[in-house]
């Protein structure tokens, strides 16, 4: 019995034929529209039709790969011999008579411009394996089993392949009939299996469909580029950055290095820089946000921060070095952190801590409580030993091995570019470009104030420059990597801002380069304990938590998501450990310190939110890795920490399922969203989420009309909702209403540029311009002008698709 089984166990490779016409029900609406008989009048209008690519005469190089039943009779018609097979991309046109070819000269050119890629692909296709499994047998066949004969054909020459195929092929009566009768056991069955050599064949899309053929050869791109939008969307890798990077990683510009070395004394800024290096005795708590402004009494200032001791000093040219690194008195900051109106939650807790404390020492103590809470971190065992020995003065920090220290330095010193201006120069001329006014590192105060000004005006490149200058002044400038240096709270904050901006600018490679000396952010010199004289009594990490998150997230943008996950996991376990310590009644770092109830609660709250942030990063990373199962699980587990984000998270999970294509599961999550919204009671926000989800489900069901209705419904509740506006316009395009769609997006951009000069909207708009008319370049240039008026130097000009 076993033997009889073996005989029947033969693996069989199948061919896949496109679903025949016997399933019209699924596509009834589409097909009904698409397949309509062609009236004879067209032939009159198209005189060339008779000489067109003839169905019978035209054979593409891939002909032999045909697998559908209807192909079989074609293959058996011996028409193949009569056809010239060529892999040249123009072979198709070869079949078109010369005169029509000439007539098409222009168009063909436009196609050809994209051919090289295609040609390569065709070469590969040529090598594809063709496996023809021919089986012959009838129910009445003799007792001996007819073994399936498998012929593996791998040939360079298509002709040979065809010959081989026809030899192996027997007429497939079913297929020839056109409408396969599924259950007829009679007749011979031919199976042709075309296994593409997938291993080496990259499935590069053939992009010829986006032809700009009618356009004269201008600067307009002749097709969509695969990486136009900067978002690390799931389909595109982040590999485009390296090419962009090359010019950015540059030597220090002579002017700048001169600026810093030669006449430092003349420049007012250099006074400011001095503050980094001169006095090491004052405790620099000058980061305005690190301070608890309300509670800062003069006495306490003297105690904790010399920087604020001269509140009236003008920083640009003031003479007190210690004043420069700070923003100065709190009331001079653009958005004072003080003020009773400060909305931030942490601030209110700070105020709670300080309320009623007149004693400067007490408030200093509470400040250190807050510091401790925020700075807490668990160093590795090795680092901890070094820190203990430094603290107990067994070891002078000077003697700690150099390779155990972080010695950061700038790896490139100025980015100073403004892509918007470059484009303006190119397309709109010098005069227009002159009008472009953006803040640069030179045009703002050389301190944190100026830095914040640059960031908030979206001049991130300039902001990166400024951080470079400030760090250079601190002795961590270009080429200083690998040289011993000392860190301060501020220098690490500067590093954080710089690296965060690099990431925001998609300059991941640069960020990675500059992160490198920091290692895993666990060197002893990155802890306050390492500087007992500068920060007496202060403990914990100098590296801000946000910088750790950034550091952990970075590798995922450089195609190393696994590394990101590793880092995030270790961060998560530290967060969990700290939370566990707090819950056990210990201090954050596990020491036996007594915390007041408020402090403990505030700390637990802080660390829970930090844990949550790490979980978000993990989920985002998993999503980028397309590990949807774990991503969904992780997002789901965030709900318990952030119950107020339940609606957003569940909707997000639903969208993940839609992305996979699992509409049913998505709907389940959306139903849960609806339930949550009902519990919360109706409000515009709830209605918006519900409608938005509905719209996405319709979209996934190819029902663009209903999706559009839903998006429009959101606009009735919230007319300014940019997402609904944009999405409604996208739906219109899929409904064949290009002009309306364009009109809608255009008016949005004009009316409310703050909301709609977003790269996703602009990308959609420029795509529609390209589809609409040959004059898309002019329209894009108009967009460029709009962008130039409003956006800073960090604007991603790729979405304008001008180059």
């Amino acid at each position, binding site marked *: 019995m076993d033997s009889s089984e073996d005989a029947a166990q033969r693996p069989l490779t199948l061919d896949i034929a496109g679903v025949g016409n016997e399933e019209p029900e699924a596509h009834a609406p589409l097909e009904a529209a698409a397949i309509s008989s062609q009236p004879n009048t067209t032939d009159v209008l198209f005189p060339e039709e008779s000489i067109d690519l003839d169905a019978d005469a035209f054979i593409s190089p891939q002909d032999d790969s045909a697998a559908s039943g209807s192909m079989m009779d074609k293959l058996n018609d011996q028409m193949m011999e009569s056809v010239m097979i060529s892999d040249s991309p123009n072979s198709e046109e070869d079949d078109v008579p010369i005169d029509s070819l000439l*007539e098409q000269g222009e168009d063909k050119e436009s196609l050809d411009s994209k051919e090289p890629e295609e040609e390569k692909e065709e070469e590969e296709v040529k090598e594809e394996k063709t496996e023809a499994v021919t089986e012959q047998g009838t129910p009445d066949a003799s007792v001996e089993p007819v073994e399936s004969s498998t012929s593996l054909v791998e040939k360079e020459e298509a002709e040979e392949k065809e010959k081989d195929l026809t030899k192996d092929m027997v007429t497939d009566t079913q297929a020839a009939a056109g409408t396969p009768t599924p*259950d007829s056991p009679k007749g011979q069955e031919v199976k042709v299996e075309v296994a593409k050599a997938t291993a080496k064949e990259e499935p590069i899309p053939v992009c010829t469909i986006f032809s700009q053929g009618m356009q004269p050869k201008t600067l307009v791109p002749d097709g969509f580029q695969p990486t136009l939008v900067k978002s690390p969307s799931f389909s595109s890798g982040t590999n485009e950055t390296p090419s962009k990077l090359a010019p950015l990683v540059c030597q220090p510009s002579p002017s700048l290095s001169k600026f810093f070395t030669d006449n430092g004394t003349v420049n007012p800024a250099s006074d400011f820089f001095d503050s980094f290096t001169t006095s090491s005795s004052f405790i620099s708590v000058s980061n305005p946000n690190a301070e608890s402004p309300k509670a800062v009494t003069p006495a306490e200032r003297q105690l904790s921060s010399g920087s604020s001791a001269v509140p009236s000093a003008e920083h640009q040219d003031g003479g007190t070095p210690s004043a420069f690194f700070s923003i100065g008195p709190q009331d001079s900051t653009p958005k004072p952190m003080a003020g009773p109106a400060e909305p931030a939650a942490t601030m209110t807790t700070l105020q709670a801590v300080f309320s009623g404390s007149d004693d400067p020492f007490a408030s200093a103590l509470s400040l250190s409580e807050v510091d401790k809470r925020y700075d807490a971190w668990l160093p590795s065992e090795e680092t901890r030993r070094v820190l203990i020995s430094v603290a107990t003065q067994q070891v002078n920090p000077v003697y700690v091995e150099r390779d155990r220290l972080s010695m950061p330095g700038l790896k490139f010193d100025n980015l100073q570019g403004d892509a918007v201006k470059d484009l303006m120069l190119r397309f709109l001329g010098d005069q227009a470009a002159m009008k472009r006014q953006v803040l640069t590192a030179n045009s703002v105060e050389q301190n944190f104030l100026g830095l914040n000004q640059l960031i908030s005006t979206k001049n991130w490149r300039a902001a990166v420059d400024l951080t470079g200058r400030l760090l250079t002044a601190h002795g961590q400038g270009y080429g200083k990597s690998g040289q011993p240096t000392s860190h301060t709270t501020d220098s690490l904050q500067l590093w954080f801002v710089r690296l965060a901006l690099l990431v925001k600018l998609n300059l991941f490679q640069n960020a990675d380069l500059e992160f490198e000396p920091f290692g895993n952010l666990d060197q002893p010199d990155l802890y306050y304990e390492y500087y007992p004289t500068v920060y007496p009594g202060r403990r914990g990490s100098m590296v801000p938590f946000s910088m750790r998150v950034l550091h952990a997230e970075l590798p995922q943008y450089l195609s190393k998501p696994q590394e990101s996950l590793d880092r995030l996991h270790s961060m998560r376990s530290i967060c969990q450990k700290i939370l566990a310590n707090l819950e056990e009644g210990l201090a954050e770092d596990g020491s036996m310190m007594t915390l007041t109830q408020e402090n403990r609660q505030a700390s637990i709250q802080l660390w829970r939110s930090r844990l949550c942030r790490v979980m978000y990063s993990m989920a985002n990373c998993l999503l980028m890795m397309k590990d949807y199962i774990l991503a969904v699980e992780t997002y789901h587990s965030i709900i318990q920490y952030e119950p107020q984000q339940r609606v957003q998270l569940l909707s997000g999970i639903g969208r993940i399922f839609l992305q996979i294509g699992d509409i049913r599961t998505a709907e389940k999550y959306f139903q849960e969203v609806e339930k949550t919204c009902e519990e919360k009671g109706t409000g515009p926000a709830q209605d918006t989420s519900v409608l938005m989800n509905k719209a996405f489900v319709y979209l996934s069901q190819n029902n663009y009309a209903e999706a559009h209705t839903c998006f429009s419904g959101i606009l009735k509740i919230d007319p300014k909702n940019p997402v609904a506006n944009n999405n409604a316009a996208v739906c219109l395009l899929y409904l064949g209403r290009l002009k309306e769609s364009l009109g809608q997006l255009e008016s949005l951009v004009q009316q409310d540029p703050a909301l709609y000069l977003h790269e996703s909207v602009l990308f959609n708009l420029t795509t529609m311009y390209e589809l609409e008319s040959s004059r898309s370049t002019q329209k894009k240039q108009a967009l460029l002008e709009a962008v130039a008026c409003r956006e800073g130097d960090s604007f991603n000009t790729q979405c304008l698709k001008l180059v």
Partner: protein
Amino acid sequence: MDVNQAKQEHLLALKVMRLTKPTLFTNMPVTCEDRDLPGDLFGRLMREDPSTIKGAETLMLGEMLTLPQNFGNIFLGETFSSYISVHNDSNQVVKDILVKADLQTSSQRLNLSASNSAVAELKPECCIDDVIHHEVKEIGTHILVCAVSYTTQSGDKLYFRKFFKFQVLKPLDVKTKFYNAESDLSSVTDEVFLEAQIQNITTSPMFMEKVSLEPSLMYNVTELNTVASGKESESTFGKMSYLQPMDTRQYLYCLKPKPEFAEKAGVIKGVTVIGKLDIVWKTNLGERGRLQTSQLQRMAPGYGDVRLSLELIPDTVNLEEPFDITCKITNCSERTMDLLLEMCNTRSVHWCGVSGRQLGKLSPSASLSIPLKLLSSVQGLQSISGLRLTDTFLKRTYEYDDIAQVCVVCPYLSPES
């Protein structure tokens, strides 16, 4: 048409864009805490960014739809959708515009235009829009041929065409394997198990919405891809029913011949058509694809001229105690047989009764049941062997060994228990 005319600028411009599903914009959260140097700045920037999820800005997957960025891949069984826009770039009214979109495959040419009637006139800066759909049913090169003809104000009839070439790739690799069930005991024999291995050879995850076997007329099919747990049945593939690129998944089906076929033939012989697999999948935002395999064929195991199967056999028997089995003998040949049954003892199996008895004539496809008695002298799992059938017409002997197995146990209780 005149060659020179080709050089002339056309008044109309034809633009084509493939409409794959839009994608959701993903943003890149960069956050900081209030005490950090930028304070609330990063948070504010993210809240102001229209593409973030309000209230959960660190959630990467946004809601903003973006149009397709490139042509992408198109796979067999998917629907090719395309936007065709004819725009009047000139400043004159153009008349009698006819836009025709044909899809040329290696085997046929299909008209995809929704309408084949000419548009009477097109004013400057206006356009004719058409969205075409076509379910691709062939692998290989496809060419979208768009032809536009129109009449200028001066009465010239003009015409131009554009070709857009794309490759249709194979999305799935399907392999099948048949297993014949041991059908010794049941009277409904010839159960067949089909294992189908489906591999996603695209580059994106694929949600398998439906993988079903449409059986041929002769068979009934049971899908064995769910596990009943409680009232809900759970997929054997776990929570997520999607396939990552290059992942393979095994589907299992059990096929039983319908009674009328099973009984009529007694056994199903030779090559039979089992049915075909129907596969429906979805990808990004519900992009749908559907394929069917060709008819799957199966070679039924050969039973020879005479098939001997067991209708009744105990699974456990006592040592040295006779037990009964019932054999079913079916004539699978085309002629009548006259059969003689011999029983040969083996080392462990001892047949009771007379060996060499006549079973009489058996016509084609007929069967008869014979009860037999035997005992085993050895403990353990024992194989039943030693039956010989001889067709006295042709003097041909058929041997049946290892027909089935029984577990032989010692009936006597051991002293300690």
